């Protein structure tokens, strides 16, 4: 009798008893729904959070690219040769710097192809570009 009362307190014991219609007594048909829904929602939340972090990193990259373009343009503006300016620039990994000289103007392009960190979007690339235009020949 004592053992029976102890077992009755144990929730698992109630799961073992069955009603006449065959369903387990004390078990709601919704039991486990929170766990099931959370199991579905957590990956979705993780994906949204990862996309948010990726967006932040894209902004950081854009700022870095603007800085690179500015650095190269300043060097060219100071009279440093284009090749020397490109060699002297501290270009972060993944960024490509090109200088386009047309007529009296020089345009410094910095490009970067950002790859998504999400595995199911593998191959998706976001092209980023920053450019600055300045006079080709500056003389005092």
């Amino acid at each position: 009798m004592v053992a029976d009362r102890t077992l009755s307190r144990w929730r698992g014991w109630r799961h073992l008893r069955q009603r006449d219609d065959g369903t387990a007594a004390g078990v709601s048909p919704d039991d486990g729904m929170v766990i099931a829904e959370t199991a579905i929602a957590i990956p979705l939340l993780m994906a949204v959070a990862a996309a948010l972090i990726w967006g932040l990193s894209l902004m950081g990259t854009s700022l870095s690219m603007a800085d690179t373009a500015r650095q190269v343009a300043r060097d060219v503006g100071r009279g440093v040769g284009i090749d020397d300016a490109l060699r002297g620039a501290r270009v972060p990994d993944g960024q490509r710097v090109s200088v386009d000289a047309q007529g009296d103007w020089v345009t410094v392009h910095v490009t970067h192809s950002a790859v998504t960190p999400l595995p199911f979007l593998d191959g998706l690339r976001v092209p980023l570009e920053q450019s600055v235009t300045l006079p080709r020949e500056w003389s005092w």
Partner: protein
Amino acid sequence: MVVVTDDRGAAAVWSLALIVLLVGVALVVALVGSVGIARASAASVADLAAVAGARSGSCTSAREVADRNGMSLSDCMVDDGDVVVRVATSMPVVAQRVIDALGGTVEIEADARAGYVDYGSPG
């Protein structure tokens, strides 16, 4: 006694609320970030425009540099040989629409000063 233990949808509601919150945070961050990027670009162009103005000694070339970079020279003056410029730019279209919808205004401007430095003749 009937005990109602209907948990169905509870996690979905919380997840939806969290996703809405995250997307909201993402939008705010994107807005602030686009302002930051535009400000950095404006600072870069203002710098070059000031140098161009200082080299020519006038605001004409500074204005030309700003125009070439898709920005406008909102202010320029020659001060004792130095050229002081203020360059203004606009927000990206999407960000501008969001700001308009919120009833706010964001002005993106950057100032720069450049001048000729005479180091004297050698010897």
